[in-house]
């Protein structure tokens, strides 16, 4: 269709001004956009407020979407299983997969316990989840991988808390709204997670590659102890994630580590648990400059006493 010829705006002053103002506004819009983009690249948390409000507003639709999404996944799995070996097969396979993950996790937990007992006899208290909620969606069109969950500040969720599903780690809370939160998924290119091999105890980092898989980089370079099919679990370093939660399964070996597939695919995730930050003191210590004492520590108390005297 040929466009209506709005460019030749007759002798009407009003029409001419309207057209001109349109171009000026569009130009100003682009400039304002460029400035805002610069600000938010420089300060990524700058527009947290408006985003939280907007997300809270569409949350009810998202809840429905989550049910339909996981229901749909179940339907496809059932059809696939009927074609191959009967409709039970899909359920059994899923259960078996989770059981396998659990066994590997239990192995790594036993190893962890033995190590802790050998050190000090320390014991983790079982951390209760802050909230159990639905995974309501993700940024499916952007190259950044963010997810949205249906619980926010009103459920006591804070920035930095780990999010996990029944299978394994999903990501970490990045922003909180009143009743929703934004989660940085493991596959985002900005995501780095301290991990170790469940079988081999080799410590490393899992980085998102942006294409749905993870890159495992080992800390100690030497003989690569990872094998194809190994389970990668969290190591607890950094203090955010409790150790021993399943993260990924190694799919191929690289020079300095491995490539791995996420255990908890967001597409098949319905309910997630938000857990408290595992070691809050460690996280705060990592944020504090070396010169300053950590809040709540002996040195801080001593410093406070000295100032009092």
């Amino acid at each position: 269709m040929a466009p209506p010829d709005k460019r030749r705006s007759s002798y009407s002053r009003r029409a001419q001004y309207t057209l001109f103002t349109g171009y000026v506004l569009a130009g100003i819009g682009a400039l304002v956009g460029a400035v805002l983009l610069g600000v938010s690249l420089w300060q990524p948390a700058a527009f947290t407020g408006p985003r939280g409000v907007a997300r809270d507003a569409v949350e009810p639709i998202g809840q429905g979407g989550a049910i339909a999404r996981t229901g749909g996944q179940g339907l496809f799995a059932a059809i696939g299983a009927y074609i191959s070996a009967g409709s039970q097969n899909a359920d059994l396979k899923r259960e078996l997969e989770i059981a396998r993950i659990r066994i590997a996790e239990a192995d790594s937990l036993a190893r962890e316990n033995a190590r802790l007992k050998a050190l000090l006899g320390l014991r983790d208290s079982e951390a209760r989840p802050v909230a159990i909620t639905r995974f309501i969606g993700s940024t499916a069109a952007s190259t950044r991988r963010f997810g949205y969950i249906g619980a926010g500040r009103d459920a006591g969720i804070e920035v930095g808390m780990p999010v996990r599903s029944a299978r394994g780690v999903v990501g970490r809370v990045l922003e909180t709204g009143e009743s929703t939160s934004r989660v940085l998924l493991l596959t985002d290119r900005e995501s780095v997670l301290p991990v170790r091999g469940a079988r081999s105890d080799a410590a490393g980092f899992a980085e998102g590659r942006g294409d749905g898989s993870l890159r495992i980089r080992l800390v100690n370079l030497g003989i690569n102890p990872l094998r194809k099919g190994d389970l990668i679990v969290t190591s607890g370093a950094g203090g955010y994630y409790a150790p021993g939660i399943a993260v990924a399964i190694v799919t191929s070996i690289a020079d300095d580590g491995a490539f791995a597939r996420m255990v908890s695919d967001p597409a098949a995730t319905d309910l997630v648990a938000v857990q408290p930050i595992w070691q809050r003191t460690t996280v705060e210590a990592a944020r504090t400059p070396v010169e300053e004492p950590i809040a709540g520590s002996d040195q801080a108390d001593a410093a406070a006493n000295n100032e009092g005297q």
Partner: protein
Amino acid sequence: MQRLDPASRRDAYGGRINRAHSPWLATIVPWLSILLGSIVQTLPIASALPMLPPLGFAMLLGWRLVRPGLLPVWAGFPLGMFDDLFSGQPFGSAILLWSLAMLMIEIIEARVPWRGFAFDWLLGGAILAGYLLIGALASGAPLGTPALVAMGPQVVLSVLLFPLISRIVSTLDRVRLTRIRVLR
């Protein structure tokens, strides 16, 4: 007359006697459909890699190319701002890119005023692919080869879905111009 051909008093937009277009409906449908596109892209699929076309932007392109002159040139600013709240891109990227796209189409339209659907598809596809690429560059995270490769299916899907988006837009355009206002 009616006995001869009952359809003679109707057209694609409904009956013509005692009915008129609703200005309210005619204005709100394009804007609302683009806003819905922005919201919908975050909801149905939670994927580990980007897959869906940017639906809000595709709807904007659809309205701009299928019905030129309907959306004002500055429409990219408010609509892009809304999209930024949901898309996961850093705030401001859609404001900038949507505004630039509207200006760019305006310039191209001055050069090629008469064009068929094939040219619109080419133009829309090229703008969508460029939008995804620049969006990835300005996403605030380092861009590696695997991430670029992973974008391939998304770009292809976006380009292939453009005719469908155009059909949706033309259907919505018919809804927009349905005569529902009763004249007294």
